[in-house]
């Protein structure tokens, strides 16, 4: 039986705005009351003065290589879902590039089942779109959908436009969004960073912006002509934001996301050949970053994601050109967004809630979860006043690869409440 909890003195996010200095009483996994000056002798008190109570955040994009077998590989389902909860997420979409890849309905069911047992965020599954992610034959999308897969998509772009067209047509019947990487495979081949002044200076092979535009334009046209649902992952350029805005204006069923790192870092982060800043799509110059932030603000970019990509220190400790792409982001995201975007006045808390909760939930077809009396309790607790440093050695995630290590941040995730359970720092400290 779950514990009765009373969160005291927090600012509570509701549809109507912040309720300052309010208490939230939680019992049996539901929010019983939200008011000022609640007292309940049977409830465990949480001193939350100065904290924020947000609707539970959702990450649409995380890679847990060991999610299927749950052994050996860096980041199992357990470590990944715990990292998500400690990072302030109540739900996370697991990408299909596990070993083996998530091709079959039994694997989807297994991940859901395992997710129930793990003291972490709830897992949703983006199933593979093609068998073994080989880009050749479609997976059984109806069976995967029936098993609860929220989306389908390979983690590499589909080179074959006809196959993508067929997939969009077919998935429309299932109202299933396809998660796609927008990238022309040949134009980006061999590239390890954004093609521009920095890549020329460093002597590194570049990935031109046009590689993203071409891939994106193709995918948008296919979504438009089929009526299928397209979710664009990894938006990284200003022109891409414009292409997506135009498509939305034409009524194309498209949503889009960009990663934490693309909102707060530029390709200048590569000047020291830091392999932890080697990402795909690559980090871009500041004019793109500004356009992405504007895209988040206006909602053209629906979601901000972690694109959590675990890579071992050994794999990253090689020559830049040979290092794998990707950064771990689940436990850095919220403090970094708060520090670099909210406190800098670039986006508001409303934008954060939209991009990390409301719109991702819409994309996944989940109900609204703003804190209110009588509702199931699914919340994220954030302390915006804590002075902290991004320190991967303290993470729940098995992955430590981040270009943000050592950066001072303002704000700390205190935890989440999901499926009747308190998780994260606040729960850990009370049991200790």
């Amino acid at each position, binding site marked *: 039986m779950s514990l009765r909890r009373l969160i005291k003195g927090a600012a509570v996010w509701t549809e109507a705005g912040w309720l300052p200095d309010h208490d939230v009483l939680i019992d049996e996994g539901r929010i019983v009351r939200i008011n000022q000056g609640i007292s309940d002798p049977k409830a465990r008190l949480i001193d939350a003065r100065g904290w924020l109570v947000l609707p539970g955040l959702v990450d649409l994009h995380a890679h847990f290589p060991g999610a299927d077998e749950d052994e050996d590989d860096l980041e199992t389902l357990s470590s990944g879902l715990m990292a998500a909860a400690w990072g302030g997420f109540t739900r996370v979409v697991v990408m299909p590039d596990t070993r083996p890849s998530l091709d079959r309905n039994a694997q989807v069911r297994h991940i859901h089942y395992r997710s129930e047992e793990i003291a972490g965020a709830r897992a949703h599954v983006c199933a593979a779109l093609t068998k073994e992610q080989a880009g050749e034959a479609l997976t059984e999308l109806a069976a995967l959908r029936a098993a609860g897969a929220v989306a389908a998509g390979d983690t590499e772009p589909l080179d074959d436009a006809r196959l993508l067209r067929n997939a969009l047509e077919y998935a429309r019947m299932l109202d299933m969004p396809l998660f796609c990487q927008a990238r022309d495979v040949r134009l980006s081949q061999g590239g390890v960073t954004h093609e521009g002044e920095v890549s020329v200076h460093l002597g590194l092979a570049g990935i031109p912006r046009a590689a993203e535009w071409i891939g994106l334009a193709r995918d948008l046209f296919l979504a438009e002509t089929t009526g299928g649902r397209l979710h664009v992952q990894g938006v990284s350029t200003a022109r891409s934001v414009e292409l997506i805005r135009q498509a939305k204006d034409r009524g194309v069923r498209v949503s889009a996301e960009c990663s934490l790192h693309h909102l707060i870092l530029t390709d200048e982060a590569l000047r020291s050949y830091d392999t932890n800043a080697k990402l795909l799509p690559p980090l871009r110059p500041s004019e793109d970053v500004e356009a992405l932030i504007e895209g988040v603000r206006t909602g053209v970019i629906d979601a901000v994601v972690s694109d959590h990509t675990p890579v071992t220190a050994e794999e990253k400790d090689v020559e*830049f050109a040979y290092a794998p792409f990707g950064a771990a982001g689940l436990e850095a995201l919220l403090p970094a967004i708060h520090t670099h975007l909210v406190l800098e006045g670039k986006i508001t808390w409303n934008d954060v809630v939209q991009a990390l909760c409301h719109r991702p939930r819409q994309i996944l077809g989940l109900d609204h979860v703003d804190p209110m009396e009588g509702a199931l309790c699914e919340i994220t607790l954030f302390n915006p006043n804590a002075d902290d440093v991004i320190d991967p050695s303290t993470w729940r995630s098995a992955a430590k690869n981040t270009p943000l290590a050592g950066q001072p941040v303002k704000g700390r995730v205190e935890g989440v409440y999901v499926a009747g359970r308190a998780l994260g720092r606040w729960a850990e400290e009370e049991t200790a």
Partner: protein
Amino acid sequence: MRWRRKDLLGLAELESSEIELVLETAEPCKQIFERSIKKFPTLRGKVVVNLFYEASTRTRTSFELAGKWMSADVVNIAASSSSVVKGESLTDTAKTLEALGADIVVIRHSAAGAPHALAKAIGARVINAGDGSHEHPTQGLLDLYTIKEHKGKIEGLTVTIVGDILHSRVARSNLWGLRKMGACVRLVGPPTLVPRTLAGPGVEVFTNLDEAIDGADVINVLRIQRERQATGLFPSLREYSRLWGLNAQRLRRAKEDVIVMHPGPANLGVEITQEVVDDPRSVVRTQVRNGVAVRMALLYLMAGGDRDELASLN
């Protein structure tokens, strides 16, 4: 005057005064070629390791001679593959060398940034002897030395660099070094191989070689890698040679006192003809000698030597 930084990773981060220091220190070093006994006792007891992940006869030999003539113990390591293939990380290799007492590690690597990783991992000094398409600072320094030697100055000169700028570490080191020393730089080659982002104050980008060498004081011809043609960056070596090859006919239209440089080894008949290499205005052989002098100067400075003390040894 003394060298102040730990490593030499590129010319992009150097001050002009640091470049000047190396060029001035190379002056007494060069005189060693005139001696019957080619040896300074200055680096006795120091260990210089040449760690070459990429085949190179010229640069390695040049560093080897430079070290030996300064009386250092020089060890050559030809590492044949990257850490990825071998399973041993670069930093691990470097720490082993450091444990063996290396004072200076000279590294050549096919991947840009490899010397940076090395420099971060170890306390020994690191000299970049060429990393991928990034930099080749000692080549840049010897080219600057050669230009200064022939022209008496660098500031105010116009230097044309011809060839595959995009993939050339020699081009980058020359470009940054020349700009810092006040020369104007012209970059010319196939449009697919000359990044336009490099154009800026003091740097012009051309596609026409005749225009680019008109009025130039120095022409530096880069080696063209044959595999670039295979990847579709230009149609054929023949067409490359026709448009960007330096031959005697073209050279006639250049300034009378122009000097022609090439980092070697040259693809004769492709980017440069034998005739041009043998022309009195070609300083290709001098570059090779200057390479040893500049590397002696660097090893000396990086081992803690003072420019003025070396000059008094002569």
